[in-house]
Protein backbone atom coordinates (compact mmCIF):
# COMPACT_ATOMS: atom_id res chain seq x y z
CA UNK A 1 0.00 0.00 0.00
CA UNK A 2 1.99 3.00 -1.23
CA UNK A 3 1.32 6.51 0.04
CA UNK A 4 3.22 9.75 -0.30
CA UNK A 5 4.48 11.82 2.63
CA UNK A 6 4.24 15.54 1.92
CA UNK A 7 4.91 16.98 5.36
CA UNK A 8 6.31 16.00 8.73
CA UNK A 9 6.45 17.54 12.19
CA UNK A 10 8.06 16.36 15.38
CA UNK A 11 8.31 17.63 18.95
CA UNK A 12 10.11 15.83 21.73
CA UNK A 13 13.02 16.09 24.16
CA UNK A 14 15.99 17.44 22.23
CA UNK A 15 13.97 17.30 19.00
CA UNK A 16 12.01 20.58 19.05
CA UNK A 17 11.06 20.58 15.37
CA UNK A 18 11.59 18.59 12.17
CA UNK A 19 14.45 20.78 10.91
CA UNK A 20 16.53 20.11 14.01
CA UNK A 21 15.37 16.51 14.34
CA UNK A 22 16.38 15.86 10.73
CA UNK A 23 19.97 16.94 11.47
CA UNK A 24 20.12 14.84 14.64
CA UNK A 25 18.47 11.75 13.15
CA UNK A 26 20.68 11.85 10.04
CA UNK A 27 23.78 12.04 12.25
CA UNK A 28 24.71 15.59 11.18
CA UNK A 29 24.20 17.00 14.69
CA UNK A 30 24.64 15.39 18.12
CA UNK A 31 21.61 14.54 20.22
CA UNK A 32 21.28 16.83 23.24
CA UNK A 33 18.48 16.01 25.65
CA UNK A 34 16.20 18.91 26.59
CA UNK A 35 12.56 18.95 27.68
CA UNK A 36 9.99 19.19 24.87
CA UNK A 37 8.62 22.71 24.51
CA UNK A 38 4.89 22.84 25.19
CA UNK A 39 3.19 24.99 22.57
CA UNK A 40 0.54 27.66 23.16
CA UNK A 41 -1.41 26.42 20.10
CA UNK A 42 -2.36 29.80 18.64
CA UNK A 43 -4.16 27.88 15.88
CA UNK A 44 -7.06 27.24 18.28
CA UNK A 45 -9.84 29.82 18.54
CA UNK A 46 -9.55 31.72 21.84
CA UNK A 47 -12.57 29.97 23.39
CA UNK A 48 -11.16 26.53 22.61
CA UNK A 49 -7.61 27.45 23.57
CA UNK A 50 -8.51 28.42 27.14
CA UNK A 51 -10.28 25.06 27.57
CA UNK A 52 -7.71 22.90 25.80
CA UNK A 53 -5.45 20.76 27.96
CA UNK A 54 -1.76 20.31 27.36
CA UNK A 55 -1.93 17.13 25.24
CA UNK A 56 -4.57 18.76 23.04
CA UNK A 57 -2.38 21.81 22.40
CA UNK A 58 0.59 19.53 21.81
CA UNK A 59 -1.29 17.50 19.18
CA UNK A 60 -2.87 20.51 17.47
CA UNK A 61 0.48 22.24 17.17
CA UNK A 62 2.09 19.14 15.63
CA UNK A 63 -0.69 18.84 13.07
CA UNK A 64 -0.44 22.53 12.20
CA UNK A 65 3.31 22.25 11.69
CA UNK A 66 2.96 19.19 9.45
CA UNK A 67 0.23 20.87 7.38
CA UNK A 68 2.46 23.93 6.92
CA UNK A 69 5.43 21.73 5.97
CA UNK A 70 3.26 20.00 3.36
CA UNK A 71 1.74 23.31 2.21
CA UNK A 72 -1.55 21.46 2.63
CA UNK A 73 -4.96 22.98 3.24
CA UNK A 74 -5.78 21.30 6.57
CA UNK A 75 -9.49 21.59 5.86
CA UNK A 76 -9.12 19.01 3.09
CA UNK A 77 -7.33 16.37 5.17
CA UNK A 78 -8.97 13.42 6.88
CA UNK A 79 -7.75 13.02 10.45
CA UNK A 80 -6.11 10.06 12.20
CA UNK A 81 -4.78 10.80 15.68
CA UNK A 82 -3.13 8.25 17.95
CA UNK A 83 -2.20 8.40 21.61
CA UNK A 84 -1.43 5.51 23.94
CA UNK A 85 -2.91 7.13 27.04
CA UNK A 86 -4.69 10.29 25.92
CA UNK A 87 -4.88 12.93 28.62
CA UNK A 88 -3.97 11.37 31.97
CA UNK A 89 -3.98 14.73 33.80
CA UNK A 90 -7.62 15.22 32.92
CA UNK A 91 -8.46 11.63 33.89
CA UNK A 92 -6.63 12.19 37.20
CA UNK A 93 -8.61 15.38 37.91
CA UNK A 94 -11.88 13.59 37.16
CA UNK A 95 -10.89 10.73 39.49
CA UNK A 96 -10.09 13.29 42.20
CA UNK A 97 -13.50 14.95 41.77
CA UNK A 98 -15.26 11.57 41.92
CA UNK A 99 -13.44 10.76 45.16
CA UNK A 100 -15.03 13.80 46.86
CA UNK A 101 -18.42 13.46 48.61
CA UNK A 102 -20.08 15.83 46.08
CA UNK A 103 -18.78 13.85 43.06
CA UNK A 104 -19.01 16.99 40.89
CA UNK A 105 -17.06 16.58 37.66
CA UNK A 106 -16.01 19.65 35.70
CA UNK A 107 -17.93 19.73 32.38
CA UNK A 108 -14.81 21.05 30.64
CA UNK A 109 -12.69 18.21 31.97
CA UNK A 110 -15.31 15.67 31.00
CA UNK A 111 -15.41 17.25 27.52
CA UNK A 112 -11.60 16.94 27.30
CA UNK A 113 -11.41 13.41 28.69
CA UNK A 114 -12.61 11.54 25.62
CA UNK A 115 -9.88 10.00 23.51
CA UNK A 116 -10.85 11.96 20.40
CA UNK A 117 -10.76 15.35 22.14
CA UNK A 118 -7.53 16.36 20.37
CA UNK A 119 -8.88 15.38 16.95
CA UNK A 120 -12.04 17.33 17.71
CA UNK A 121 -10.17 20.48 18.74
CA UNK A 122 -8.00 20.17 15.59
CA UNK A 123 -11.08 19.82 13.39
CA UNK A 124 -12.61 22.91 15.01
CA UNK A 125 -9.35 24.87 14.66
CA UNK A 126 -9.04 24.25 10.92
CA UNK A 127 -12.77 23.81 10.15
CA UNK A 128 -12.12 20.27 8.91
CA UNK A 129 -15.40 18.52 8.15
CA UNK A 130 -13.94 15.16 7.07
CA UNK A 131 -14.08 12.12 9.33
CA UNK A 132 -11.57 11.69 12.14
CA UNK A 133 -10.34 8.49 13.74
CA UNK A 134 -8.61 8.33 17.13
CA UNK A 135 -6.51 5.27 17.81
CA UNK A 136 -5.11 3.78 21.01
CA UNK A 137 -3.06 0.57 21.01
CA UNK A 138 -0.72 0.91 23.98
CA UNK A 139 2.92 0.70 22.87
CA UNK A 140 1.88 -0.09 19.29
CA UNK A 141 -0.22 3.06 18.92
CA UNK A 142 1.99 4.69 16.30
CA UNK A 143 2.07 1.54 14.17
CA UNK A 144 -1.71 1.18 14.49
CA UNK A 145 -2.30 4.84 13.61
CA UNK A 146 0.08 4.67 10.66
CA UNK A 147 -1.65 1.53 9.37
CA UNK A 148 -5.05 3.19 9.83
CA UNK A 149 -3.86 6.33 8.00
CA UNK A 150 -2.33 4.37 5.12
CA UNK A 151 -5.47 2.26 4.77
CA UNK A 152 -7.69 5.35 4.68
CA UNK A 153 -5.47 6.93 2.03
CA UNK A 154 -5.60 3.78 -0.11
CA UNK A 155 -9.21 2.78 0.52
CA UNK A 156 -10.82 6.21 0.43
CA UNK A 157 -8.38 8.10 -1.78
CA UNK A 158 -8.20 10.71 0.98
CA UNK A 159 -5.24 12.78 2.07
CA UNK A 160 -4.69 12.22 5.79
CA UNK A 161 -3.32 14.20 8.70
CA UNK A 162 -1.72 11.56 10.90
CA UNK A 163 -0.57 12.61 14.38
CA UNK A 164 0.67 10.46 17.26
CA UNK A 165 1.50 12.00 20.62
CA UNK A 166 1.99 11.10 24.25
CA UNK A 167 2.42 13.29 27.31
CA UNK A 168 3.40 11.91 30.75
CA UNK A 169 0.62 11.79 33.30
CA UNK A 170 0.65 12.37 37.08
CA UNK A 171 1.03 9.58 39.65
CA UNK A 172 -0.53 7.12 40.30
CA UNK A 173 -1.75 6.76 36.70
CA UNK A 174 1.79 7.42 35.46
CA UNK A 175 2.90 4.25 37.21
CA UNK A 176 0.34 2.18 35.31
CA UNK A 177 0.91 4.02 32.01
CA UNK A 178 4.59 5.03 32.04
CA UNK A 179 5.64 7.67 29.49
CA UNK A 180 9.23 8.86 29.67
CA UNK A 181 8.65 12.29 28.13
CA UNK A 182 6.30 14.26 25.91
CA UNK A 183 6.80 13.23 22.31
CA UNK A 184 4.75 13.68 19.16
CA UNK A 185 4.95 13.27 15.41
CA UNK A 186 2.65 14.27 12.55
CA UNK A 187 2.69 13.27 8.89
CA UNK A 188 0.63 14.43 5.91
CA UNK A 189 -0.12 11.37 3.76
CA UNK A 190 -1.30 11.64 0.14
CA UNK A 191 -2.72 9.06 -2.26
CA UNK A 192 -0.76 10.46 -5.22
CA UNK A 193 2.51 12.29 -5.63
CA UNK A 194 2.30 16.08 -5.49
CA UNK A 195 4.96 18.74 -6.00
CA UNK A 196 5.43 18.69 -2.20
CA UNK A 197 5.83 14.90 -1.86
CA UNK A 198 9.13 14.23 -0.11
CA UNK A 199 8.96 10.45 0.43
CA UNK A 200 6.80 7.50 -0.50
CA UNK A 201 6.23 4.63 1.86
CA UNK A 202 4.68 1.19 1.57
CA UNK A 203 3.33 -0.45 4.70
CA UNK A 204 2.53 -4.12 5.12
CA UNK A 205 1.60 -6.23 8.13
CA UNK A 206 3.90 -9.26 8.46
CA UNK A 207 3.52 -12.35 10.59
CA UNK A 208 6.23 -13.29 13.04
CA UNK A 209 7.75 -11.88 16.20
CA UNK A 210 7.11 -8.15 16.72
CA UNK A 211 10.74 -7.14 16.28
CA UNK A 212 11.19 -3.38 15.90
CA UNK A 213 14.03 -1.50 14.25
CA UNK A 214 16.05 0.05 17.11
CA UNK A 215 17.80 3.43 17.24
CA UNK A 216 21.59 3.42 17.24
CA UNK A 217 22.06 6.43 19.56
CA UNK A 218 21.42 5.13 23.12
CA UNK A 219 19.50 8.23 24.28
CA UNK A 220 17.21 8.02 21.25
CA UNK A 221 16.72 4.29 21.77
CA UNK A 222 15.74 5.08 25.36
CA UNK A 223 13.23 7.60 24.07
CA UNK A 224 11.89 5.14 21.47
CA UNK A 225 11.43 2.47 24.11
CA UNK A 226 10.06 4.88 26.72
CA UNK A 227 7.29 6.66 24.82
CA UNK A 228 4.67 4.98 22.63
CA UNK A 229 4.59 7.85 20.12
CA UNK A 230 8.40 7.76 19.89
CA UNK A 231 8.14 4.29 18.34
CA UNK A 232 8.01 6.48 15.20
CA UNK A 233 11.68 7.43 15.60
CA UNK A 234 13.12 4.70 13.31
CA UNK A 235 10.75 5.83 10.56
CA UNK A 236 11.72 9.48 11.13
CA UNK A 237 15.40 8.46 11.00
CA UNK A 238 14.81 6.74 7.67
CA UNK A 239 13.14 9.89 6.38
CA UNK A 240 16.02 12.04 7.63
CA UNK A 241 18.54 9.68 5.99
CA UNK A 242 17.18 10.51 2.53
CA UNK A 243 17.87 7.08 1.09
CA UNK A 244 15.72 3.97 0.49
CA UNK A 245 15.22 2.20 3.82
CA UNK A 246 13.23 -0.54 5.50
CA UNK A 247 11.80 -0.12 8.98
CA UNK A 248 9.93 -2.55 11.20
CA UNK A 249 7.50 -1.36 13.87
CA UNK A 250 6.20 -3.76 16.50
CA UNK A 251 2.51 -4.34 15.95
CA UNK A 252 0.55 -6.69 18.23
CA UNK A 253 2.04 -9.82 19.75
CA UNK A 254 2.62 -11.89 16.68
CA UNK A 255 3.20 -9.45 13.85
CA UNK A 256 4.96 -6.29 12.83
CA UNK A 257 4.35 -3.39 10.49
CA UNK A 258 6.98 -3.42 7.78
CA UNK A 259 7.56 -0.05 6.12
CA UNK A 260 9.56 0.48 2.96
CA UNK A 261 10.45 4.12 2.51
CA UNK A 262 12.21 6.10 -0.18
CA UNK A 263 12.72 9.76 -1.05
CA UNK A 264 10.61 10.87 -4.00
CA UNK A 265 12.45 11.45 -7.24
Amino acid at each position, binding site marked *: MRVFVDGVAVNGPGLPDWEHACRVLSGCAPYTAAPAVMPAAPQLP*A*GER*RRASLPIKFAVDLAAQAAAHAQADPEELGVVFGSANGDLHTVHQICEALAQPEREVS*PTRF*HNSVHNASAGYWSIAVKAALASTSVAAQDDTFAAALLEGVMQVRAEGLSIMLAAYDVPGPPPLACACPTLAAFGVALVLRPAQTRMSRWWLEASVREGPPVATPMTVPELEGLRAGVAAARALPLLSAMAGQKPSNVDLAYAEDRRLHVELSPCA
Partner: protein
Amino acid sequence: MSQVVSLELEVAQIIVEALNLDVDPSAIEADAPLYGEGLGLDSIDMLELSLAISKKYGFQLRSDDKDNVRIFSSLRALTEAVGARRTK
Protein backbone atom coordinates in the same frame (compact mmCIF):
# COMPACT_ATOMS: atom_id res chain seq x y z
CA MET B 1 -23.55 49.05 48.34
CA SER B 2 -19.92 48.17 48.95
CA GLN B 3 -20.95 44.63 49.87
CA VAL B 4 -22.80 44.28 46.54
CA VAL B 5 -19.78 45.58 44.66
CA SER B 6 -17.42 43.26 46.49
CA LEU B 7 -19.69 40.25 45.84
CA GLU B 8 -19.84 41.28 42.19
CA LEU B 9 -16.05 41.37 42.01
CA GLU B 10 -15.87 38.03 43.80
CA VAL B 11 -18.26 36.48 41.24
CA ALA B 12 -16.24 38.09 38.43
CA GLN B 13 -13.12 36.46 39.85
CA ILE B 14 -14.86 33.09 39.89
CA ILE B 15 -15.86 33.57 36.24
CA VAL B 16 -12.29 34.39 35.24
CA GLU B 17 -10.72 31.56 37.23
CA ALA B 18 -13.27 28.86 36.41
CA LEU B 19 -13.18 29.62 32.70
CA ASN B 20 -9.47 30.46 32.40
CA LEU B 21 -10.32 33.82 30.85
CA ASP B 22 -7.60 36.25 29.91
CA VAL B 23 -9.49 39.19 31.39
CA ASP B 24 -9.11 41.35 34.51
CA PRO B 25 -12.13 40.51 36.72
CA SER B 26 -12.65 44.20 37.48
CA ALA B 27 -12.91 44.87 33.73
CA ILE B 28 -16.03 42.70 33.29
CA GLU B 29 -18.93 45.08 32.78
CA ALA B 30 -21.81 44.38 35.16
CA ASP B 31 -24.51 44.58 32.49
CA ALA B 32 -22.63 43.15 29.49
CA PRO B 33 -23.97 39.80 28.23
CA LEU B 34 -22.00 36.80 29.48
CA TYR B 35 -23.20 34.47 26.74
CA GLY B 36 -22.12 34.82 23.11
CA GLU B 37 -21.02 38.38 22.42
CA GLY B 38 -19.18 40.19 25.19
CA LEU B 39 -17.12 37.55 27.01
CA GLY B 40 -17.79 35.04 24.24
CA LEU B 41 -18.92 32.28 26.58
CA ASP B 42 -20.84 29.21 25.44
CA SER B 43 -22.96 26.46 26.96
CA ILE B 44 -20.03 24.43 28.35
CA ASP B 45 -18.77 27.62 30.04
CA MET B 46 -22.17 28.08 31.65
CA LEU B 47 -22.08 24.51 33.01
CA GLU B 48 -18.55 25.07 34.32
CA LEU B 49 -19.60 28.36 35.90
CA SER B 50 -22.63 26.72 37.53
CA LEU B 51 -20.33 24.14 39.12
CA ALA B 52 -17.93 26.79 40.42
CA ILE B 53 -20.77 28.91 41.82
CA SER B 54 -22.43 25.96 43.54
CA LYS B 55 -19.14 24.86 45.13
CA LYS B 56 -18.40 28.35 46.42
CA TYR B 57 -21.87 29.44 47.57
CA GLY B 58 -23.53 26.15 48.46
CA PHE B 59 -26.58 26.18 46.19
CA GLN B 60 -27.34 24.30 43.00
CA LEU B 61 -27.79 26.06 39.68
CA ARG B 62 -29.51 23.31 37.74
CA SER B 63 -29.75 23.08 33.96
CA ASP B 64 -33.58 22.98 34.15
CA ASP B 65 -33.93 26.14 36.28
CA LYS B 66 -36.55 28.33 34.56
CA ASP B 67 -34.61 31.45 35.56
CA ASN B 68 -31.35 30.40 33.89
CA VAL B 69 -31.61 32.82 30.98
CA ARG B 70 -32.01 35.70 33.39
CA ILE B 71 -29.45 34.47 35.96
CA PHE B 72 -26.72 34.01 33.36
CA SER B 73 -27.56 37.13 31.35
CA SER B 74 -24.92 39.33 33.01
CA LEU B 75 -22.50 39.60 35.90
CA ARG B 76 -25.02 41.79 37.75
CA ALA B 77 -27.83 39.24 37.33
CA LEU B 78 -25.59 36.35 38.40
CA THR B 79 -24.41 38.31 41.44
CA GLU B 80 -28.04 39.02 42.42
CA ALA B 81 -28.86 35.31 42.15
CA VAL B 82 -25.85 34.42 44.30
CA GLY B 83 -26.84 37.06 46.89
CA ALA B 84 -30.42 35.73 47.05
CA ARG B 85 -29.70 31.99 47.07
CA ARG B 86 -26.35 31.48 48.74
CA THR B 87 -26.16 29.20 51.77
CA LYS B 88 -22.53 29.88 52.54
